[in-house]
């Protein structure tokens, strides 16, 4: 744990009712630790008018009540000034504490139907894909896009695949890859990731996510290698 004050950040508008603070340009554990620390800072000491906080890999989004912000003399500029002041305050960033989840995965088959296509497009043997995917200990960089969906990184560069051009229906437990990310769909939803396997590991408990930002994940292949 150390005290840090990141100077390099950028603030941009996400429509007329949210702003995003971007702390870096890539997926990087240190940037993500910083995002989580700032997230906690804004959570513990909320800014008037801010109604939701969404942390991601390298950014933190503040959703605000447009009424409150529009009423201020300078509108959005006043809110951004307050945010900048907050970002001047040094905060404690933790790099050390995390929980490890070992998640068994059945690769391929009916519920991992994109494995074959990934293998063909990448020209990599099926078993090698399974080995490369289950080799690293991943970090939970952020939670989103639906409750309990954990974005894990960083995927081996050899497995980089684009998202599908149109989202498809997903079943709970689908293990997918996209770009340098991997993740598990916790519930029925549309999704654009390439599904290479399936897990029965519980991802939600009473609607609350089991995996938390900063946790670690190791995939255990159930297939005979």
């Amino acid at each position, binding site marked *: 744990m150390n005290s840090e004050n990141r100077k390099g950040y950028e603030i941009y508008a*996400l*429509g007329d009712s949210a702003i*995003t603070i971007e702390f870096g340009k890539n997926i990087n554990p240190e940037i993500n630790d910083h995002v989580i620390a700032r997230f906690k800072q804004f959570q513990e000491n909320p800014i008037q008018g801010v109604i939701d906080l969404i942390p991601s890999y390298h950014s933190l989004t503040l959703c605000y009540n447009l009424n409150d912000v529009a009423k201020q003399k300078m509108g959005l500029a006043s809110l951004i000034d307050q945010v900048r002041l907050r970002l001047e305050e040094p905060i404690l960033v933790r790099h050390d504490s995390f929980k490890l989840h070992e998640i068994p995965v059945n690769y391929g088959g009916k519920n991992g139907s994109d494995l074959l296509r990934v293998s063909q497009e990448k020209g990599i043997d099926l078993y090698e894909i399974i080995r490369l995917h289950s080799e690293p200990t991943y970090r939970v960089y952020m939670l989103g896009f639906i409750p309990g969906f954990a974005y894990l990184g960083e995927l081996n560069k050899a497995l980089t695949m684009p*998202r599908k051009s149109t989202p498809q229906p997903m079943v709970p437990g689908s293990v997918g890859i996209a770009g340098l990310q991997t993740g598990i769909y916790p519930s029925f939803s549309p999704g654009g990731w390439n599904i290479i396997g399936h897990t029965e590991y519980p991802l939600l408990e009473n609607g609350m996510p089991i995996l938390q930002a900063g946790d670690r994940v190791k995939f255990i292949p159930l297939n005979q290698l």
Partner: protein
Amino acid sequence: MDQFSASIANALVGNKLNEDLLEIHFPACEIMFTKPCLISIVGADFTAKLNEKYLPMNRPILVPTNSKLQFVSPKSGKIVYVAVQGGLLGQGRLIKNSEIELKKKPKLTTTSLYIFPWSADVEWRKYSPEIHVIQGREWERLQEESQRKFCCKPFKISHHADRMGYRLQHESFQTRSKEEIISTAVNFGTIQLLPNGQTIVLMADHQTTGGYPRIAHVISADLPKLVQKSPGDEVIFHLTDQETAEKEWVAQQKHIQQIHTISQLKLYEFFEKNTH
């Protein structure tokens, strides 16, 4: 979804503006009233009937016991709101063949249908195709020609339109870069560019984060208008700025607030007169 209509519906029956109410899509449910209620119907016109009698929209209506409310055919819009004075129990719940409880026991004793002589002005949300947007973080990824097309050409809402997102129909947009972006936050009204050059506008039940380029965002004041569009309806996007978006929003909220204040006053007068 359509917060404007929902607020007006609540305002008409004297509720607080964000009171729980029914959001109904077509084909719609039938509602049986087992107690007398003060209701209002705002949003899409699905041809409302109470015990076979046509009901007007945007007005307070006193409904007697044992009345059946039906929506027989969709005329315009996509979502209708039914507010009940005092509010309903069951926040954010999908209702299927079940009883809905009222938050407060009604003190009404009406035995016949009564339609109030005043109505709310909902002109704000005229069904014009014009929708204003603010540039998104990845706007510059669109090639110039695609940027121009995005701004003035009419697009149709596709059949893939639900509470999560409305997909639009247009020729594929071309991008300068196909570089994957790191998943980050999205918002109600965010317009994402899909890898096949098509676009989707995220709706109320949107994902919190996404990895498709965000080319623009619909301003909050125009969301109610967009939400009420059905598959096949046209939209035309116009670029605007934060300042205009704030002004439009404030003006719209003022309009709702005024209807709220007047409604409360008129309802109070009405019930005073009728109890003495």
